[in-house]
């Protein structure tokens, strides 16, 4: 782990479901889904509290300190 703010120029830190992740700079939300093994799974993605439609995930370039939520459906009443 690098100290905060000391990431290499080609790397960014984002927070996925509250957990820190390091990604290559310039990566998209779809790239992130692929990296965590969820591409093609039934999930919805929110970046900084705004839903990103599935069709737009490949165009949504992530920036340092972005906060993402990746959610799915579970049993509930």
């Amino acid at each position, binding site marked *: 782990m690098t100290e905060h703010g000391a990431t290499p120029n080609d790397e960014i830190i984002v927070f*996925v*479901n*509250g*957990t820190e992740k390091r990604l290559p700079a310039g990566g998209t939300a779809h790239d992130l889904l692929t990296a*965590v*093994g*969820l591409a093609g*799974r*039934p*999930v*919805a*993605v*929110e970046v900084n*509290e705004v*839903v990103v*439609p*599935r069709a737009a995930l490949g165009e949504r370039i992530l920036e340092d300190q972005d906060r993402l*939520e*990746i*959610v*799915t*459906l*579970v*049993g*509930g*009443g």
Partner: protein
Amino acid sequence: MLVAAEKRHRSSEEQDGERDGRMTDAGMNDAAGKPAGEVALRVGSFTLASRLVVGTGKYASYAEMARCLEASGTDCVTVAVRRERLLNAAGENILDHLDLSRYTLLPNTAGCFSATDAVRVARLGRELLRDLGNAGSEWVKLEVLGDQKTLLPDPVGTLEATEQLVADGFSVLVYTSDDPIVARRLKDLGAASVMPAGSPIGSGQGVLNANNLSICLEYLKDGDPDYPVIVDAGVGTASDVAAAMELGVDGVLLNTAIAHAADPLRMARAMRAACAAGRDAFLAGRIPRKRYAMASSPETDRITPAALSPN
């Protein structure tokens, strides 16, 4: 408005009386799970064949959940939106066990304690369901909770979130208390269905305040008899469902009463029968309660002397 509902039903029953009677006697329903001669429940743009909406939480297994949903006769099931567990991406998903050609999913905002959070979760649920091609993407079961202990709704947050979600194009089915004034305000804000709790979520206490629920029905259906009112939460056993339906609610949403019954599959069947029985009893129109007896056999031509008068 109750009279209007009864009259409407009676005219259809007359056309279909023989079949209706047989179905009722058997305590069974047609393949779609509704009593013959019954009109379907409409909520917003949705038409539901069953008047039970069943939750998918807290079952011992997905297989048991699937069997119970089938036995309940429901065609609409609630689901929750939660963070994907990143370390368990290859694990089972509830969607692997729900036949989406059979069930319309009703995503909820359970666990939200502010209007802001509930709106976020509703939008995520919509995105998930749109992606699945499920019709349920256009509606939401809105819950804005007041505290963890009671899980009672926060009325102010619930009103705020209803307004925002209606403006955002959702059909909002809104969990609320049995307060008739709040219920009326939610309808005025454009809620597609107001869903008063019978008693706290998961408490199994049934309908604690039938009087309030009746006033909710009176207000919400005034001049609008088909406005759907669904009891959401508190059911403990089948008679609770029947009692709610007998009051004239349009449907009942339940989860724990089936999922945590000692025999969930049997309870799912009981709920289905109770819902149909309660609905039929409402439409049939119950007799008034009286303080004293009224003989069922003729008072005349008895071979024995008349009984003593109490005075």
